[in-house]
Every structure is written in structure tokens, then in C-alpha cells.
């Protein structure tokens, strides 16, 4: 449904927008992690796409920001994308387009107030019950290891792979011995 609004907002090529929208809907990623795995990711990504599309037009910037704040409360994985939202909304909504030193206070107030309201609604009950430390330790699991069980394919996976290979290395080429004279 939200993808439909993306298609509508595309100005350059409707065909391309349709193709992109269909590829997301039919994505095997969503099939694997949502329809079979767990956690309602499909619905959340729908909200993300809607928020991204709302950012396309000046008149719906505020709605886009508030929707993203709501999305953050639904699942904090989207915190990863928050810096881009912050800079974009700051530049496009809170500062004047001509002069970046001119602040549009009314817009700042609307956006800031809205975001505070969304977060208060989400975290208020936990704060009232004194559960915030428990909440934070669940949300940010630094006590768990660097790599997830199956190694997400990132730089650390390459790093671990290199480490595993280095274990099996033959006695190393003793260059450092020549250099240090030991």
C-alpha cells in the first residue's frame, strides 16, 4: 500500500517506480525473515518506505519526521538510519533554504514537540514503573559478542575469517626475526 504512494510520487519514470515497488513487495528477504522467521519486519519496512516517500514533498516533511519517530519506538534497529533523518530535517525543515544561519523556530517547535510527544507515549509507562535500566540493557546488548551467531556479512566477518585462517598458518615467515636480530 505504502509503495503505491511511492509510485505516485515518482515524477521521472512510472515504469521504473513500478518495477522497484514490485521488487520490494516480492523480495525474498521479506519472505525469509518475516513470513517464515519472526518479528513483523514487513509491516515496519512499509512504515519506513512511507516515511521516506513523505520526505519527498515539502508539505509532508513534518509527517515524515514524526512517522519515523514512531517507527523508532516500534523497533530501535531504525536508529541506524536516524542520523540521515536528523540532517535532512534540520536542513530542509528547521533551517531556511536560502540561509543556513536563519532558524525557522515555528517549524523546530512543531517537529521537536511532536517527537517528544511520540517518545513520551512510548517510554512514559516504562519510566513510571522504573524499568528504564532493564529496557536499555535489552535494547543495547553490548554484553553480547561482536558477531551474531551466524556472522552477519560485514567487515567483522572478514576479520574473523582472516583470524581463522591465521590460526592454521604454517610457522610464519620469520621476517621479524631478521629485522630484530633475535
Amino acid at each position, binding site marked *: 500500500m505504502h509503495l503505491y504512494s*511511492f509510485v505516485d510520487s515518482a515524477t521521472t*519514470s512510472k515504469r*521504473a517506480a513500478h*518495477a*522497484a515497488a514490485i521488487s*520490494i513487495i516480492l*523480495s*525474498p*528477504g*521479506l*519472505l*525469509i*525473515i518475516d513470513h*517464515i*522467521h519472526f518479528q513483523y*519486519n514487513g509491516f515496519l*519496512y512499509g512504515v*519506513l*518506505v512511507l516515511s*521516506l516517500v513523505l520526505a519527498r514533498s515539502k508539505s509532508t516533511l513534518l509527517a515524515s519526521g514524526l512517522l519515523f519517530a514512531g517507527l523508532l519506538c516500534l523497533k530501535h*534497529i531504525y536508529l*541506524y*538510519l*536516524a*542520523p*540521515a*533523518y536528523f*540532517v*535532512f530535517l534540520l*536542513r*530542509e525543515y528547521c533551517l531556511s533554504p536560502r540561509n543556513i544561519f536563519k532558524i525557522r523556530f515555528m517549524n523546530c517547535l512543531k517537529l521537536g514537540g511532536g517527537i517528544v510527544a511520540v517518545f513520551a507515549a512510548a517510554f512514559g509507562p516504562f519510566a513510571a514503573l522504573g524499568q528504564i535500566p532493564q529496557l536499555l540493557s535489552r535494547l543495547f*546488548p*553490548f554484553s*553480547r*559478542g*561482536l*558477531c*551474531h*551467531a*551466524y*556472522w*552477519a*556479512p*560485514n*567487515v*567483522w*566477518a*572478514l*576479520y*574473523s*575469517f*582472516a*583470524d*581463522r*585462517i*591465521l*590460526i592454521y*598458518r604454517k610457522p610464519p615467515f620469520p*621476517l*621479524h626475526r631478521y629485522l630484530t636480530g633475535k
Partner: protein
Amino acid sequence: MNKTLIYVLVAPRLGLPLKTEALSSATRGLVGDTAFAVLPEITPRTCFILTLFFQVIPLLKLFKKPTWDTFIGSVTLCGYASFLFGWHVHEKAILLVIIPFTLIALKDRRHFGAFKPLAVAGHVSLFPLLFTPAEFPIKTVYTIFWLVLTLIVFDRLAPASSKPRVFFLDRFSTLYIAVSIPLIAYCSIFHSLIFGKSYEFLPLMFTSSYSAVGVVGSWLGFLVVYFGS
């Protein structure tokens, strides 16, 4: 492959000590805690600083030129940075990169070129999440069908770019996609035929290292496109 190569070549020469307790522990598939035997440990602080650094670079451009296309590009790059350098990242976080990227992948052939290895790597890396034999046919057949269809349709629709393409990136993505075929075949069929139940961490390690090369490659490619347009 650069990072691996660098470490394979450099670490022995530095005479880094081998931590024997790490040999028996971790990183063999199912354990959550990671210990390195040879290379230095990574702290959450290192992850955080690296992530932030690679997020701020594209954001500087967004601040200077706040168009919608740049915004989607910087959302994609923020996703990349946190996925590549983050602490305890789950495989499914790759969709944080793929989905925003899809919205601009058809902008021109340069964008599409960087998107190709990501589409393959991202979805192949999700395979280990479904591990029972019963789920094997549907995930493989459906993913391959989707990849073929998407790549063909996108290939027809992506308009030519006004700027010259990066030669190396083209060759890289073609070769990369070709390698995925024997890899999937090995991990899902031949490994169990050859080794049976032993060395179960091997297919996982190959899958994630292969995918990591693809994701890092497409990240570098997209950085070039993002700052070049």
C-alpha cells in the same frame, strides 16, 4: 578481499602472538561470543567510532545539497556503515540497506551497477537463517527466481548515465554473481555429501565471507556513485 589479504600478509610479519584459549572457542557457527586467536580484539567503542565516522562523511554532502535523492542515498549509506561496522549486527539488518537502495537503484546504470552485488549478497546471506531441509527448496528457488527476474527487469529499465561508468565495478559485479552459483550448490548440497555432519561451520563461514565481500564491494561502488553525482 582486501582486508583479509592485508591481514594474512601483515599479521605474521608483525609477529602477533597466538592466543591459544581462543582456538577452541567461538565463531564456529552457533556461539554468540567471539574471540580472536591472532588479531587484536574489537571493542564496542571501536565499532561505534568507525560507524559514526562512515555515517558522517555522506551526511556532510547531504547538508550541503539536501535533495530527496541525496537523502535516500545518505539513508542507504548510514545503513551500510552501521551494518558493516556495527556491534552484534543481525543478518536481517541488510534489509535496512536494500530497501532504501531499491528506491533509487533505477536512477541510472551507475546506481544499478552498485546495487547488483548487494542484491545477490544480501539475500544469499539470509539463507542460513532458515536451516531445516524442508525450507531449503522454497528459499532457494524463490530467491533465485526473484534475483533473475529483478536483475533482468532492472537491467532493461535503468537509463544510461551521463557520466562514464567505473570499469572495474562492472567486471566485479559480473564475476561476483557468477561465483554465487557454485557457492550455493556447495553449501546446500555438496558439503553434506563430502563431509557429512562434520565441519558444519565451513558453509556458514564461506557464505558470510562471500556475502561480506559483496556488501563491502557494493558499498565502495555506491560511495563512488554518491560522491560523483
